[in-house]
């Protein structure tokens, strides 16, 4: 272990140490401390004299890893900022919450930076473990515990699948190093079938994390029961990290027999997610199903198997992540002590009560639906063009169909926003942190939609 390695690991260490040390910070400052730690990690990742590219055996410190770390750290910071008021009205233990968020970010960063199956497992487990607790964090709310259970058990199963998959791949290839395992599998080793079996199991585990159909059933329940900021992190961060891994380190599409499997998962996700979202009347559940659909689109990026597709995938992740975090953040921001406004009925008349937040929510949903000139459109555009280029015409047509139908379920809550509602508001005005995060997300969505050049360039610079 050299000094360079330590320096390269510094951002991760900051996150980890932060997550431990925040436990000793007083209740009121804990979340701010968490934000500071996350931002510090993000800054350190790009600090000129610290950013040496020295790979440790388990995690990379390349541009992509650092870029992802920055993203997740920003997400973590956003989560902390969005939870401030939410936490205060529910008597959460702030230090523990911040610690878990930071630890979760740590896990995601390790996951997306992993160069080995070991760090992949560790990162995934670190992230998942933190989520188990975060989801059930609101002890006053019994659905929280139910949500925790519903994430925990499938999560365990997925962990076991992942572990077994890793073990089989290891058994077949004799190494944990990701690039080597993939290369060996592609080359067709003696135990090719065992390796493929292992990869399939890994794929299943990843499908669970990314909530691809039919591994998605937990998603709506967990999103509904989890505290809104946590659900935001879960929807954007955990899925993002998994896909970052797939795009950068585990090019599954290179393994030819897995391509049909991926395609089927994508198609199923688009179809099932779209139809299941149609009758929803609960915003968070709708967003859950919509995330299933979006993850189906993301698989297209994985399937392309080339640079352009991966860039498109990352861009899509950014646009999807910004919209999702902001959407859940808005739910958090609109929550009062009595609960979250999850049902469409509770959103009625929001435009009159808090016009800015209503406008933002409209924008977010429109972006998710893929209306220009918002980021969602540009994301779909780059993604679908990449997939079309790779020859997946039928998947693109399916994706377009599901985008079409999706307009219905995205616009349904929008219509309610502007109806004159009778429900009384028990939420206060947004605080500074919320405004900052939501505003930033909004700006990102507009800029990425109208002038995506710079963001695309940044992504092109970091994608390996």
């Amino acid at each position, binding site marked *: 272990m050299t000094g360079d390695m330590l320096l390269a690991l510094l951002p991760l260490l900051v996150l980890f140490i932060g997550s431990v040390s925040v436990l000793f910070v007083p209740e009121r400052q804990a979340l701010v401390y968490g934000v500071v730690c996350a931002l510090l990690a993000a800054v350190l990742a790009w600090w000129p004299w610290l950013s040496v590219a020295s790979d440790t055996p388990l995690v990379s410190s390349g541009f992509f890893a650092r870029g992802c770390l920055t993203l997740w750290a920003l997400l973590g910071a956003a989560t902390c900022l969005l939870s401030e008021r939410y936490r205060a009205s529910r008597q959460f233990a702030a230090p523990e919450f911040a610690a878990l968020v930071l630890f979760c970010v740590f896990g995601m960063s390790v996951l997306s930076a992993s160069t080995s199956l*070991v760090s992949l*497992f*560790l990162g995934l*487990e670190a992230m998942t*473990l933190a989520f*188990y*607790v975060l989801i*059930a964090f609101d*002890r006053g709310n*019994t*659905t929280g*515990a*139910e*949500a*925790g*259970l*519903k994430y*925990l*058990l499938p999560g*365990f*199963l997925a*962990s*076991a699948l992942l*572990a*077994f998959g*890793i*073990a*089989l791949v*290891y*058994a077949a290839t*004799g*190494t*944990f190093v990701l690039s080597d395992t993939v290369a060996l599998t592609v080359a067709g080793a003696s135990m090719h079938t*065992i390796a493929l079996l292992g990869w399939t199991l890994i794929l299943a585990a990843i499908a669970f994390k990314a909530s691809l159909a039919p591994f998605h059933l937990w998603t*709506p*329940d967990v999103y*509904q*029961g989890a505290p809104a900021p946590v659900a935001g992190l879960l929807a954007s961060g955990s899925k993002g990290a998994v896909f970052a891994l797939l795009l950068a380190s585990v090019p599954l599409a290179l393994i030819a027999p897995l391509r049909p499997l991926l395609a089927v998962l994508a198609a199923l996700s688009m179809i099932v997610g779209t139809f299941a979202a149609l*009758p*929803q009347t609960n915003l968070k*559940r709708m967003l859950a199903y919509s995330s299933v659909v979006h993850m189906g689109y993301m698989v297209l990026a994985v399937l392309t198997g080339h640079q352009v597709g991966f860039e498109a995938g990352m861009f899509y992740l950014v646009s999807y992540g910004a919209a999702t975090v902001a959407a859940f953040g808005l739910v958090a921001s609109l929550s009062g002590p009595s609960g979250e406004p999850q049902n469409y009925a509770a959103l009625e008349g929001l435009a009159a009560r808090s016009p800015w937040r209503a406008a933002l929510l409209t924008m977010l949903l429109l972006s998710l639906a893929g209306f220009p000139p918002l980021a969602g459109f540009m994301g779909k555009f780059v993604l679908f063009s990449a997939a079309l280029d790779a020859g997946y015409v039928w998947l693109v047509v399916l994706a377009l169909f599901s985008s079409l139908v999706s307009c219905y379920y995205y616009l349904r809550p929008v219509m309610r926003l502007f109806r004159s509602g009778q429900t009384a508001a028990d939420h206060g005005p947004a605080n500074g942190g919320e405004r900052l995060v939501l505003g930033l997300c909004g700006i990102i969505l507009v800029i990425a939609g109208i002038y995506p050049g710079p963001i695309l360039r940044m992504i092109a610079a970091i994608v390996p």
Partner: protein
Amino acid sequence: MIVPLGHVLILAGLLFVAGLAGVLLRRNLIMILIGVEIMLNAVSLTLVGASAYWRHPDGQLFALLLMAVAAAEVTVALALVIYLKRSRGTLDVNRFDGMKG
């Protein structure tokens, strides 16, 4: 290697399926957790077997790591078990169906 890797894998596979069956068929939370543990044991077995086959220690190290992770997981799970038992008085997982659709 005395036992061929194939045999180890078959055994591990059987163990894994047994554990999976436990997870799928049991309704009691504790029993499901035990099922998962059995599956993880199958994983450990595979890792150790493969480690022996390839003649380097990575697999065994990973097996050790896996134990630690499993322990952490179970810790969280047991905390949830206690919370659920206290609040709802049952550990039948299908009793927790407040959210659906």
